[in-house]
């Protein structure tokens, strides 16, 4: 087997700010990631839920598939703003980590505020990194290892045949109603209501069974890493 092509990772970016969405989208695209942006946590869950079960007829149907059964697009990383109306980034993080089909997706939190207790809480809940806004290219460059590690784990699982008990319980829960105290952005900008997806040809990374020869880090990633960029904004 010759040199494998660089896998194209798919990042789901969640931010209620239009300006920040445009910025994070560009940052990710320039780093050669496929990007989907949404403007709320509930839309993020909707999108993720649509990946888990292709033919979910009713909202009550509990998807019972494992990630490796994805028909279509895969999400390799979720990067989300912390402060959002309705479902915060922290709430989203919790929901993802509570879901057996989503919990392996690395989650990164962005925030404009450097609040140590907030950072600790997020990392304890399973966030890979906490990035201070404004996000820079150097921050985005640090995301790849997380995606690579998770992908290797998935490949290893696929190779070891069966997943013992993988049941879908997660997105059976309807997302909490979005309390939009601030109706500014959502109502004024119809295009952000829809999920923006950038279509790029992707090398099917699900079918690629790459032998993970060297695992950079152990199977239990160090969750207590604190990543800051720059100084506090106050």
């Amino acid at each position, binding site marked *: 087997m010759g040199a494998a092509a660089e896998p194209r990772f798919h990042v789901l970016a969640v931010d209620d*700010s*239009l300006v920040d969405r445009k*910025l994070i989208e560009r940052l990710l695209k*320039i780093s050669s990631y496929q990007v989907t942006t949404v403007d709320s946590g509930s839309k993020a869950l909707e999108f993720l839920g649509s990946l888990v079960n292709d033919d979910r007829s009713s909202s009550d149907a509990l998807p019972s598939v494992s990630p490796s059964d994805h028909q279509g697009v895969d999400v390799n990383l979720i990067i989300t703003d912390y402060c959002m109306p309705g479902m915060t980034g922290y709430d989203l993080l919790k929901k993802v980590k509570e879901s057996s089909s989503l919990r392996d997706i690395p989650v990164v939190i962005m925030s404009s505020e450097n609040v140590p207790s907030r950072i600790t809480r997020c990392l304890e809940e399973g966030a890979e990194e906490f990035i201070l*806004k404004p996000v820079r*290219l150097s921050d985005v460059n640090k995301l790849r290892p997380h995606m690579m590690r998770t992908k290797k784990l998935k490949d290893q699982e696929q190779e070891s045949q069966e997943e013992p008990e993988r049941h879908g319980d997660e997105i059976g829960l309807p997302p909490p109603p979005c309390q939009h*105290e601030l109706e*500014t952005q959502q109502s004024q900008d119809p295009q952000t209501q829809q999920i923006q997806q950038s279509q790029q040809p992707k090398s099917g990374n699900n079918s690629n069974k790459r032998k993970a020869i060297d695992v950079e880090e152990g199977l239990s990633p160090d969750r207590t890493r604190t990543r800051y960029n720059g100084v506090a*904004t106050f």
Partner: protein
Amino acid sequence: MRASLEGEKQQTDQSMDGGLMQMQRRLAEYRNALFKEGILDSQYLQLQELQDESNPDFVVEVVSLFFTDSEKLLNDLSRDLAQQNVDFKRVDAHVHQLKGSSSSIGAEKVKNACIVFRNFCQEKNIPGCLRCLQQIKQEFLLVKSKLETLFKLEQQVVAAGGSIPTVQQPIL
């Protein structure tokens, strides 16, 4: 005779290049001044780094989003503060958004004015908030007009066949 013809040719070339060079120099000076005056900070440079041939209008696009977004937020803030019973949580949320987006594009003075505003908001100090709002509006109008001029200068350079000078660290 040949020498003088060459001399003339050189002169013509110089004046043509001189025109473009002058424009580029004016553009660089204008941009540097914005950094020196603290109107823009290094985040703006980050935006420029994200612009390339495949996305030649990225900065203008993001900044335009910032303009419309901010105008809306400033209107919201005026309305919020004019209420009988001011909802400070709502005010704070709006300022937080404005602080975030101004920080994201490098509009340093706007961002700083937002920080001051939030303090008055926490104190539930309405006169203070109103004064701050005026300040934010001023800073916003300033950065808007400066950036619009900057974009115009850039357009002129491009139209004259030049390229926008490579972004360097601002000379502070």
